[in-house]
């Protein structure tokens, strides 16, 4: 499998289905004008569009873009906005190639009836794959508009220029707006053309800081999230949860609950739910249910989880094997073998999982904050045994996800209740439900063993990740002899994607280990890394971070010290330096200062990029320092925000960000990779200060041990 295919497989990408509007009908619903459709090569179609999978549709379409008779441009994408700011960065990219202002662009996102199929918004894929697709369509549309003008004026299209939403003829001074040109055309153009895109050096809109396109709606409270949606006759849905994981519903007496006015109770297997006029009535009905559950005892807890994972580890796939680790280890001057652990952590998106479902006959419409609208559509079709073309899923810009909203749980629940009640139903999870029934970032055990020559040259590298995942499992350091393997485990807690996937765990283990080995070799941790790096891009971010941080300038004291860590993942290159301060009395650790240098090719929106990097660093403080899901025997013990600490204002250090803008390189996504550097940098800084080596995330949930 290619890396991309592997990445997609990790997100359980399932079937495809056909967009149901005929293109010309589609254009009609848009009110005429010009519709540009783009066919993409097979490899990309696995991610967006239906091309490739349907043999009878060899020329099929991955994305489309509309130029209206009013000159407004609408791009359609199955990607969704969760705060990562792609509504803005994609609009910039369309604007760049069409030579219009960002304000002339509308983006229809995550509507399965109107947008091309898409695997989902994850894996930092929007910028490297969706961006270029939309740009190509915009460039084709621009060419089309120029051709239309040339025909109208009987001029040579090569002489004409498109700028600011108009095509001009410099020879005659004539000009026509895009709206005037598209009026009455009713033109559908499907192109496979690999049109040239504007090189980064010539960008006028891309590469410049752009403000969030609908920013005003967020500061006024006008933006309508799924949880804010209402429909005529909307009922409040409530799911009666099982008392512990794996419990089954033995019996339920619904009579008293069903006597309450306007209450519908649904029991379907182990699913038990209520629809009522309001939350209060639904809660009263739930309290009136008499349920008997069969619970499953003997489930693991925090105390036994790492032992459980190791015991249940599968051999895994072959992974990476190069040279002979055994031989290299035998002749190494310095050897080290260490184990690292990572606890389960929760996403805690501030908007809980929510869906509004509405049936009209056998047609189901669901609004929900899912990162995978098309997968949720399939999930609904399957759950209700209806054809997928009877299901429409819409994703309003959502109150964050961080990889936590791939599944359609709330959508299925709302649709089940709406079906029974015969009215639209909203299911909005409580924070307790969110902590208990959403999935978590996988816990893991990571074993690292390696050897080096006295001069600091790495000669052997062995790395085993048990359960947390294969993302960024490979070492970026040049080592001739390697064995690297991921060992999946059937996890006792429901686990899934999280911003950066296992890249955080693997970087924590690898970059902590590198620090340990540097100390064993009596080498400066930064110099040791640079010595073993041949990747120029990674070297560049290490050097940039070190320079900004003034690495090595201050000697560590018993109260203050610094650490460094870095790596590459999803096309982004990161180095992080952190300085910590230890309170000698309370042993409390505070992160004082963080410098992150990041490079992701040519930067599309420096404003959004800074926000994402800074946000990733702040979010990573939680998993690095104190976040851990507490669980025991099928129950989550940390099911409230008062029981699960997340980073707050007081936890935030001074943060400096260095962005290396490589106009000569393709743009990569940036929503995830900046999260991976903080934990090892902080752990290494704690060691520099205290000589205490911490090999478990979170590092200091109760302050420094000892």
């Amino acid at each position, binding site marked *: 499998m290619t890396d991309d295919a592997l990445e997609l497989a990790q997100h359980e990408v399932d079937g495809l289905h056909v967009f149901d509007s005929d293109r010309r009908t589609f254009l009609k619903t848009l009110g005429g004008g010009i519709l540009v459709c783009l066919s993409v090569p097979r490899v990309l179609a696995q991610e967006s569009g239906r091309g490739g999978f349907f043999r009878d549709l060899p020329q099929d379409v991955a994305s489309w873009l509309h130029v209206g008779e009013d000159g407004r441009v609408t791009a359609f994408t199955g990607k969704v906005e*969760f*705060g*990562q*700011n792609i509504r803005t960065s994609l609009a910039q990219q369309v604007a760049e190639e069409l030579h219009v202002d960002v304000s002339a662009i509308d983006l229809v996102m995550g509507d399965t009836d109107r947008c091309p199929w898409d695997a989902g918004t994850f894996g930092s894929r929007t910028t490297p794959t969706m961006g270029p697709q939309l740009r190509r369509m915009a460039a084709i549309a621009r060419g089309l508009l120029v051709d239309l003008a040339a025909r109208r004026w009987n001029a040579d299209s090569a002489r004409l220029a498109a700028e600011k939403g108009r095509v001009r003829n410099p020879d005659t001074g004539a000009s026509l707006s895009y709206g005037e040109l598209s009026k009455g055309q009713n033109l559908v153009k499907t192109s496979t053309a690999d049109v040239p895109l504007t090189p980064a050096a010539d960008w006028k809109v891309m590469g410049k800081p752009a*403000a*969030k396109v609908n*920013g*005003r*709606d*967020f*500061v*006024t*409270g*006008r*933006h*309508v*999230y799924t*949880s*804010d949606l*209402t429909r005529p006759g909307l009922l*409040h849905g409530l799911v009666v949860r099982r008392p512990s994981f794996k419990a089954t519903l033995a019996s339920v007496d619904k009579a008293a609950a069903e006597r309450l006015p306007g209450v519908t109770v649904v029991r379907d297997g182990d699913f038990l739910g209520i629809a009522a006029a*309001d*939350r*209060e009535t639904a809660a009263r009905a739930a309290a009136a249910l008499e349920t008997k559950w069969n619970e499953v005892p003997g489930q693991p807890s925090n105390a036994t989880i790492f032992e459980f994972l190791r015991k249940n580890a599968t051999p895994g796939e072959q992974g990476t094997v190069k040279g002979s680790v055994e031989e290299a280890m035998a002749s190494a001057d310095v050897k080290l073998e260490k184990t690292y652990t990572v606890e389960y952590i929760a996403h*805690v*998106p*501030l*908007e*809980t999982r929510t869906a509004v479902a509405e049936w009209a006959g056998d047609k189901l419409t669901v609004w929900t904050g899912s990162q995978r609208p098309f997968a949720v559509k399939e999930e609904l079709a399957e759950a209700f045994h209806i054809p997928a073309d009877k299901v429409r899923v819409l994703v309003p*810009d*959502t*109150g*964050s996800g*961080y990889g936590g909203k791939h599944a359609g749980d709330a959508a299925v629940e709302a649709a089940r209740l709406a079906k029974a009640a015969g009215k639209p139903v909203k299911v*909005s999870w*409580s*924070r307790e439900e969110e902590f208990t029934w959403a999935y978590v970032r996988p816990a893991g055990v990571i074993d690292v063993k390696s050897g080096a020559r006295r001069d600091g040259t790495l000669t052997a590298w062995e790395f085993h990740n048990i359960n947390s995942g294969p993302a960024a499992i490979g070492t970026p350091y040049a080592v001739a002899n390697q064995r690297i393997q991921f060992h999946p485990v059937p996890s006792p807690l429901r686990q899934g994607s999280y911003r950066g996937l296992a890249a955080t765990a693997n970087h924590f283990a690898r970059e902590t280990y590198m620090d340990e080995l540097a100390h064993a070799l009596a080498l400066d941790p930064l110099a040791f890394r640079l010595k073993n790096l041949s990747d120029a891009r990674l070297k560049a971010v290490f050097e940039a971070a070190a320079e900004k941080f003034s690495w090595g300038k201050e000697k560590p004291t018993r109260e203050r010290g610094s650490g460094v860590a870095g790596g590459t993942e999803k096309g982004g290159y990161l180095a992080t330096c952190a300085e910590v301060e230890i309170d000698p009395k309370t042993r409390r650790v505070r992160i004082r200062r963080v410098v992150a240098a990041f490079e992701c090719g040519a930067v599309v929106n420096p*404003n959004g990029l800074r*926000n*994402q990097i*800074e*946000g*990733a*660093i*702040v*979010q990573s403080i939680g998993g690095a320092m104190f976040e851990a899901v507490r669980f025991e025997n099928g129950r989550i013990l940390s099911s*409230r*925000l*008062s029981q699960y600490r*997340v*980073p*707050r*204002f*007081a936890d*935030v250090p001074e*943060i400096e960000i260095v962005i290396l803008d490589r106009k000569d390189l393709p743009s990569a996504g940036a929503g995830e990779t900046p999260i991976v550097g903080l934990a090892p940098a902080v752990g290494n800084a704690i060691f520099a200060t205290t000589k205490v080596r911490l090999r478990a995330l979170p590092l200091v949930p109760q302050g420094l041990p000892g």
Partner: protein
Amino acid sequence: MSALTLHVNGASRPAEAAPDESLLSVLRERLNLTGTKYGCGEGQCGACTVLLDGKPVRSCRTKASEAAGRKIVTIEGLVSGDRLHPVQAAFLEVEAFQCGFCTPGMIVSAVGLISAKPAPSSDDIASALGGNVCRCGTYPRIVTAVKQAAAAMKKG
């Protein structure tokens, strides 16, 4: 259900509510003022913050009946006509948000802070907004925005 009247954003709003229903629930479910958000239901995240007689309170932990007859301001009430409140304008200019879900609570809390302390320091902001969670981690920009708003309001 019982009838009560809330004074929200300068208007009297009659509503029917359950006896112990929270102010958050009445604002969102009965009066369709959905700018105020549910985040945790136990006063830990600040997404539901409104001003009650000028002071920030957690509307999820405030009974609607306790708020009856008092002056309530929600995020929707900060705009005058088309003009953003200086705190809203600063949040927009600094772009002190990502997914935006915490933003109404952050802005309302900041308005409360600035009215009590017209020139807040970074520590003042961290302490007054300590109960507001931005899971996207936009805290540094929020501090910048609050300071910028305070400075703009001082100038008038």
